[in-house]
């Protein structure tokens, strides 16, 4: 009987696992296993929803798999249904409609959902999150030229849709409870540059603002705050964080690292604490590449790498995972902002440089000779004349010894390129592959999407 793989969740982690299982089987000539995908939604990429909102792509562009493409990959699909409970002893998943699915091994990749603070009015009309495709559709229907949009939360998610809201012809105000914007992606100095840039581009910012109530007044929203005047809005977008979808595992005996918010603790093969169960993406508390600590990295690149590593292991390979590198990039009004690794580390040697007249900022963080974190900010027109964005990733990822360059980089934090080249970082990186094999098997389709 062929091995029965069960993938719970049709996001980035789940689909990468499926594709990798098929790649591995194709590569080693094994007879195909049985793959079942359970997914509450039809698979699409959340990463590209902001571009759908901005009107630069059609809705059809967001899907990462179709019923036809999944059939071509010989995947049995159970779409529109949610996992309700898992019995790891009998290896059975129960769905919300009571159907039971038996498996030989199982990947939990149920991702996360938007979280809203318990404030009166957050579930009222005209108040949306922006996380799922359905939520994106609602925001698209609500935001029209001249709409007054208030975004609650000035984090990464809010910033990914900022351009799109403006592109729809809306006016935008962002309110944030923290004393500054992007509190979990950049430091205070960088946030200051970004804030000034946004204000120059017509975005209203209010930081240190605690929302107390959203009132519906004759079809319009009125936001009340602990201090300061209320704000009027046609549409409110709540970008107040995400929450991992783990509640359904409460009785599963899987180690959720303390509580339902902790994440599924995984080992270096992304195995959970019970037999034949893997976890990947936003629900997995796995190894941080730089520190070795077990953390949730709810970012797309981690979901992708987790998914591929699990897929290879499910297919019978023995693939350990080095760990994931925390990283983010976002562009607002043609200003690029990116951070890598441990950018907020008071115990590091920290070198920064600012070119205020050009809105440029750099930050390098070292432990001895190793770059453990980095930040880069500047106008797109400047950033992309350099190789620096990727090179900073390469230096942090490779952990190459920069001892000889530390003094030069302290004096010239913008001058990373000669350091990257002369320390032979390229040679260090070239043998590195996530799965211990090249990805470039031309005979294999890269995407599960059948065009």
């Amino acid at each position, binding site marked *: 009987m062929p091995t029965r793989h069960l993938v719970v969740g049709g996001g980035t982690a789940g689909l990468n696992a499926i594709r990798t299982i098929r790649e591995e089987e194709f590569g080693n000539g094994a007879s195909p296993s049985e793959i079942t995908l359970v997914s509450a939604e039809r698979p699409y990429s959340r990463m590209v929803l902001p571009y759908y909102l901005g009107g630069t792509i059609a809705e059809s562009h967001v899907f990462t798999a179709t019923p036809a493409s999944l059939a071509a990959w010989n995947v049995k699909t159970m779409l529109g249904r949610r996992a309700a409970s898992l019995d790891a002893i009998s290896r059975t998943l129960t769905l919300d409609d009571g159907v039971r699915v038996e498996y030989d091994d199982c990947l939990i990749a149920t991702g996360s959902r938007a979280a809203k603070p318990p404030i009166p009015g957050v579930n009222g009309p005209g108040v949306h999150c922006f996380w799922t495709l359905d939520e994106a559709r609602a925001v698209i229907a609500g935001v029209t030229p001249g709409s007054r949009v208030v975004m609650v939360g000035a984090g990464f998610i809010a910033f990914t849709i900022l351009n799109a809201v403006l592109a729809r012809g809306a006016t935008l105000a962002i309110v944030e409870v923290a004393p500054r914007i992007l509190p979990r992606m950049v430091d205070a100095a960088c946030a200051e540059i970004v804030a000034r840039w946004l204000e120059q581009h017509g975005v209203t910012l209010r930081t240190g603002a605690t929302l107390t109530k959203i009132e519906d007044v004759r079809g319009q929203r009125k936001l009340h705050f602990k201090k300061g005047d209320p704000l009027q809005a046609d549409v409110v977008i709540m970008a107040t964080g995400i929450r991992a979808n783990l509640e359904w595992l409460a009785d599963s005996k899987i180690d959720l690292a303390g509580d339902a918010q902790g994440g599924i603790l995984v080992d270096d093969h992304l195995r959970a604490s019970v037999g034949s169960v893997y976890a990947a993406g936003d629900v997995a508390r796995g190894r941080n590449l730089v520190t070795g600590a077990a953390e949730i990295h709810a970012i*797309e690149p981690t979901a992708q790498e987790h998914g591929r590593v699990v897929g290879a292991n499910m297919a019978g390979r023995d693939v350990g995972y080095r760990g994931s590198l925390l990283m983010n990039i976002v562009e607002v009004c043609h200003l690029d902002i990116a951070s*890598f690794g441990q950018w907020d580390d008071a115990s590091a040697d920290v070198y920064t440089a600012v070119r205020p007249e050009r809105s440029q900022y750099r930050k390098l963080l070292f432990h001895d000779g190793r770059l453990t974190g980095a930040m880069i900010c500047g106008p797109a027109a400047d950033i992309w004349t350099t190789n620096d964005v990727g090179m900073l990733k*390469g230096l942090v990822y490779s952990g190459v010894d920069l001892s000889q*360059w530390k003094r030069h980089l302290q004096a010239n934090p913008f001058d990373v390129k000669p350091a990257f080249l002369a320390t032979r970082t390229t040679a260090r990186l070239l043998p590195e592959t996530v799965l211990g094999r090249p990805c470039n098997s031309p005979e294999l389709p*890269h995407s599960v999407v059948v065009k």
Partner: protein
Amino acid sequence: MQTGTFQPSKSVIRVSPFEGYTSYAPYTCTQCAEGWCMTACPVGAIQINAAGAKDVVDDTCVGCKLCTIACPYGTMFYDPDSQKAYKCNLCGGAPACADACPTQAITFEEGVPADWLGGFAETRTVRLLHGNGDGRRDLARSEVV
């Protein structure tokens, strides 16, 4: 070639000057085995072309820049005008750079991805890091001018 404009700042080959602009080294995509850009793309917009190079399919790329932070070599770029990512695709097998180079410093041949510049850069930055005996330090600036 990749952006359809004559604009050195948009070139997929970035030339680094060393030792006070007395020597130069061109740097571009190695077409690495991992294909970080390709595996990172959420919509499968980076594929392997007939020349074996990773190539951005413009109609599919949404411009999210994930590939630019996934590539650890710094050879994925973003064009603010087209709002798409772009990279060296070996011009589909007939690289314009090799044709254009007047000193044949760039040649196109079959090979294994390698660190073509590390040794050169290492020797050409010795004086930058350690001075050249008279206490003077050379400048190495990486920006394309």
